[in-house]
């Protein structure tokens, strides 16, 4: 049994330690906002936060996550009024939407480190998140809007 905390709740799973966190979340715990896209850290659709840091859950072995705190999009604090989620809705970012949960988790991490990112900083941090529908112009706009919202809240 491997124990970890997911969205504030202690969970136990009976799987091999090499199993990626992504598949534990999806198939063992039924948490589906983290998506399988590539399995090799090329697309970012599986991005979650581990101890507050954005990571690719397809590359995080569950054995190494043991004892740590995992937050998926479902478990974000203040979810209904989260400035990044609000900005994503207001800018109607998603098309198919499959990559967007990963984009959002990455953007939240970006804005935690850099409250008011430039386009160049957005490029650097968000380029690991692939969007096949091409929502990049709206992702960029939503990040700027979320940064402004967060500033206004302070």
């Amino acid at each position, binding site marked *: 049994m491997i124990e970890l905390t997911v969205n504030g709740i202690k969970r136990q799973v009976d799987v091999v330690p090499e199993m990626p966190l992504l598949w534990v979340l999806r198939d063992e715990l039924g948490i589906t906002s983290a998506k399988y896209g*590539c399995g090799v850290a090329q697309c970012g659709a599986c991005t979650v936060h581990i101890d507050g840091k954005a990571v690719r859950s397809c590359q995080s072995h569950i054995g190494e996550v043991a004892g740590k705190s995992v937050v998926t*999009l479902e478990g974000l604090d203040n*979810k209904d009024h989260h400035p990044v989620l609000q900005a994503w809705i207001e800018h109607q970012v998603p098309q198919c939407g*499959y990559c967007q949960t990963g984009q959002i988790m990455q953007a939240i991490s970006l804005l935690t480190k850099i409250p008011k990112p430039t386009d160049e900083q*957005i490029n650097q941090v968000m*380029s690991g998140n692939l969007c096949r529908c091409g929502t*990049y*112009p709206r992702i960029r706009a939503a990040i700027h809007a979320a940064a402004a919202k967060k500033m206004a809240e302070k």
Partner: protein
Amino acid sequence: MGHMQDLSRRAFIFGSAAMAGGIAFGSYCGAEAAAPAAGDNPLTAGLGPNSVTFNPWVEISPDKITLIAQHADIGQGVGSVQPIMIAEEMDLDPGQFEIRFAEPSPAYFNTGFADEFAPFVAADQSPAAEEARAKTLEWLRESGLQMTGGSSTIPDTYQKLRVAGAIARETLKAAAAKRSGVAMADLRTQSGHVILPNGSKIAYVALAAEASKIPPVLDAQPRDPSKWRMLGKPMMRLDIRSKVMGELKFGIDQKTEGMLYASVKLNPNKGQPLKSYDASKARSMPGVRNILEIKNGVAVIATNSWYAMKAVDAIACEWAPSVYPAEQADHWKVLESSFKPEFLGKEWRKIGDIDAGLKTGKLVEAEYRAPYVGHQPLEPLNGIGLVTDKGMEIWVGHQSPRFVQWVAATAIGLKPEQITFHNQWTGGSFGHRLEYENVRVLAEIANQMKGTPIKLVFSREEDFLQDIPRQIAIARHRGSVDKSKIVAADLQLASTTPLKGLLERSGTPSKDPDGQLAAGLWNVYYDIPNFRATSYEAQGLSPSTTWRSVGASTSGFFTESFINELIHAAGLDPMKARIAMCTVPHYRKVLETVAEMSDWKGPLGNGRGRGVAFVESFGTPTAEVVEVTATDRGIRIDKVWVAADVGKVVDPVNFESQVQGGVVWGLGHAINCELTYAKGAVQQTNYNHHEAMRIYQCPVIEVRGLENDPKVRGIGEPPVPPAAPALANAIFAATGKRIREMPFNKFIDFV
């Protein structure tokens, strides 16, 4: 979609194929049961007590209102705009109805293909063209072709869904009139209620039982667009919130009781069987429950997807070799030798005297190439299947519900009507979910695991290996310029056949030339006195299929690059010359608009360059200007301007998203994507080998929708074809280097 040159012959071919296959296009053979027809309402069968349905798109029970999204949602917004077109007329607000995807039924035949299938270019609105389109529509009705594609979401349903909503509204009013004794003319509707003159309200759901007992008001007319509350105005897509909140379940997120997980390893030599395999290692791996042999590979059944993927990876397989050339270089050789009469697809168009024209003035010749490309939507192929003694139930996101029934049934010896299909929200498609790799193997696996629901998920690598690619093509174009004018253009291409291939795999083979090889080749609207457009169909190469914008994705690049070369040879400005040559007034307006948006004033200098391209695809004329800078780190795309005329912009925010996404799609793949074969298998198996555009390369994309076209047109695909040639033309303007082959990064660096 294709151009039907000989309507009756084509209908005959489709018809006979349908009979032979037993399904497809609506003709179930056999006398025992009346075949479902386009006029039947499939909602009637599942209707509960005291409920009503007026047509195949509206269902009202005492508890709820359900609106049917006729098409598949592949990210283009079907699950929002189609219900809203009904809700607009019914005076329903978002939140007052549920949405369900259409089941397989000929009632959902796609009227939107009538224009694309008829053998006339889109701008031809002559009586003869319209008559052919009307005949094609009747053929579509008879055949019951239910398919999402060809940018038809709006063209197919703009009229019929608004009529469906109007009929529902008027019939509910008639029921309220009967109950209240108030004349219908004195009733109005608002927010899901009929409002009586005294201000009292009756909820639609409360009228369901009574409405079911009166004849529907079939002559109800949709409202004039000037009265729209939601359509035509910036509105919130209904799926945005649930997608942002991570609550929307895609096909891959679905789960059923007692389900096991499957992963597959299939012969990468597409379409060929398994010879032998050794699963000794896999059998003892964690979570493995079963190992199955299927027609073209092996499957592992396990307790989760990852265990299944790991175990299937450990199986050693021996494959039957490919029937197409094993090595990529030989694919190109076959194409090179396909410009011969025996491979002629069709001479699509001939104007003037091409031979004399080519001898006049200065001759320009150029060869262009476009490689195989993958679709690779981010949600990999998947599905859930359950086979019982009664038949099969399948949960899968797909663009052709009735063909899913046929493919699954054929794979396991059932009848199509024994397949119950539940369409799913999908994480993109771009043409991928018109094919059947997952459907066929899921049927085979579930059939061997009878009684157990099986969830199949392709690994990304397997998805790449089995992805039936976009067509590969070579163009050999010749033209001449004289006295600052284009005198002749002789456009010829050799290509694999995307639509023909898809139709064949759908059980409805066609012997007609592939009309998609004419798209972007024959529908050229410049005043060129001597013109010819010819396609050759290469034989024996990789299967190919429809990829966002299909034929025009390659021909648009060839044609508009070549037109640019001719304009350059004639010493003209690429924008001004196109505007001057454009023969269709409202298409000219599209070019003028993009010139105005980009403030086009000729060459920029200082390593900067602009390119323009104009392509009509799926009836939508689209012009794009791309601006680049040649930096010391390579080409940087600075900005893109797009103008497109769709007759009516129904969903403006999503319209802009579709255009921006189409440009990103077109540019990204032109810059860095190709699929190449080695030893019969595709060499690119994940996004690091087939990346397309990431955010750091994404330019600002300014969009304008025009409404001058006499018809309502689609926008999912038309922004794709002009992107690549506009970029190539911009690179030429900035550097003097002419790139004639995709992907461009083989020839020039990008930032």
